[in-house]
């Protein structure tokens, strides 16, 4: 049973113009992402990984090349791809419930069903009791959970995460990673996750895509799903069972870290 190609990135490049100078942010990236795969993009800062993610989201257009979602070219943002930004980017004037409901309001879903969906994610993200709170009344970690719930709520085919936990402290980060895996096991999502943390990449990903420094291109794709369990199998397991063991983790981290360091040295 060969998994289908969900997302195809074909020869995608992106140039920016800054002070009359052309900066190549992303250069000829090719990648095929299968349905329900968990892809993690790692690379040195400024390597264009966020740019690539924003192109998949449709927020910016590639200078050349194509991004195909189930064979159809991506030309703009859409609710089939939901993005979680580095900042929680919640609307401060909406309560927690209303923030989560925001994306749903754009879809043709009855009010009752919307409330059900919102409640489901409020429970899943441990936000019960805070439905009527405004974002500024929540801790940073809770704000992130609301932000993630908002993205889950629209039930996107592809979930894009742009260093979503970068601003969190170490403990909270662990908790959020676990929550993410839990949710991913329960829901069906294809995930593209950007991080600069090698540990996070190994912990979360089926495949780790290592990017080179600018102009960002793919240096190598490391399939670590074999070291853990295959995606489809992981889905039936409990969180602690999908966790990678210490013996598997250490060499992987060394390998990835070496690759990353090569890109950081001059």
């Amino acid at each position, binding site marked *: 049973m060969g998994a289908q190609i969900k997302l195809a990135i074909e020869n995608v490049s992106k140039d920016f113009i800054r002070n009359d100078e052309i900066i190549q942010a992303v250069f000829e990236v090719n990648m095929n992402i299968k349905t329900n795969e968990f892809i993690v993009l790692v690379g040195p800062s400024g390597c264009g990984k966020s740019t690539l993610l924003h192109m998949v989201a449709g927020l910016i257009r590639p200078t050349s090349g194509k991004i195909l979602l189930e064979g159809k070219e991506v030309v703009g943002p859409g609710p089939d791809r939901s993005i979680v930004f580095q*900042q929680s980017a919640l609307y401060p004037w909406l309560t927690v419930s209303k923030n989560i409901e925001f994306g749903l309001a754009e879809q043709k879903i009855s009010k009752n069903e919307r409330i059900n969906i919102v409640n489901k994610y409020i429970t899943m993200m441990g936000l019960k009791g805070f439905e009527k709170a*405004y974002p500024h009344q929540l801790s940073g970690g809770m704000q992130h959970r609301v932000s993630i719930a908002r993205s889950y709520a629209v039930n996107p085919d592809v979930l894009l995460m742009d260093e979503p936990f970068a601003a969190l402290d170490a403990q909270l980060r662990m908790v959020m990673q676990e929550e993410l895996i839990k949710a991913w096991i329960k829901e069906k999502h294809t995930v593209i996750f950007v991080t600069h943390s090698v540990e996070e990449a190994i912990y979360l990903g089926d495949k780790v895509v290592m990017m080179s420094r600018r102009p960002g291109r793919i240096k190598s794709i490391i399939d670590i799903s074999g070291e853990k369990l295959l995606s489809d199998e992981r889905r039936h397991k409990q969180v602690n069972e999908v966790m990678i063991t210490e013996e598997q983790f250490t060499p992987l981290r060394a390998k990835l870290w070496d690759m990353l360091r090569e890109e950081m040295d001059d």
Partner: protein
Amino acid sequence: MVLAPRYIMKKIEPFIVVLSLLIIWEMVSALNLVSPIILPEPSKILKSLYNMLFTPVGGATLIVHVWASLEKFFIGFLVAAFLGSFLGIWMGWSKRVNSVFAPFFEIIRFIPPVAWISFAILWFGMGLAAQSYIIGIGAFIPALENSRQTIKLIDPIYIQVARVFGASDRTIFWKVLLPAGLPLLIAGVRIGMGIGWMCLVAAEMISRPTLLGGEGLGYLIETSRMTLRSDYIIGGMLLIGVIGYCLDVAIRYLEKVLCPWRR
């Protein structure tokens, strides 16, 4: 010297300057160091204010003056706040609209409202409309300027998020830009309100320049100037200050009600 305990001092402190000034002022006047025309004492001003409630000055009692001022203020201010915010938002939203109107307002904004008096009379005659117009000009520019900046200052990520969820331009305007900008919008209206209220005296100087009839606090001050009633003048000034403060408190309260997400 024995001072009151600290906690009492803290309560008194804010009033010390005002109270001392009032006491010195009262004493200076009571000792006849200056003529009451140049500086009437505070107690006399309060008494005069009270008397004006029953005795008409310049053809109207105090309540009528206050009401007349509020009426022209609200007409001018409300129209200006609405038009200014509306146009400002439109200019902030559309680069094209902005480029059409911006040069005009870049110049208009430096013309003081008082300078409009002659034209206000020419266009509207010497009545309520002309006076409201002067007040409106004062309130209009800050409302416009703030709302124009508001739209530009909104964090683009709010719009990106909405786009990701497939929101239309219309939804983005009503559900994202407007609530995101509301606090700043109200701030602009609030500044405009202060300036508009301060234009009151100028505006009312063009009510009827006779001693017979005419209503409003500015008119009260003008007419008292001609009769050398310093106590009425200061009383009128004081009332303008106090009412201005009350209006400001009201709009701050409105902001709290309209923007409950702000602490």
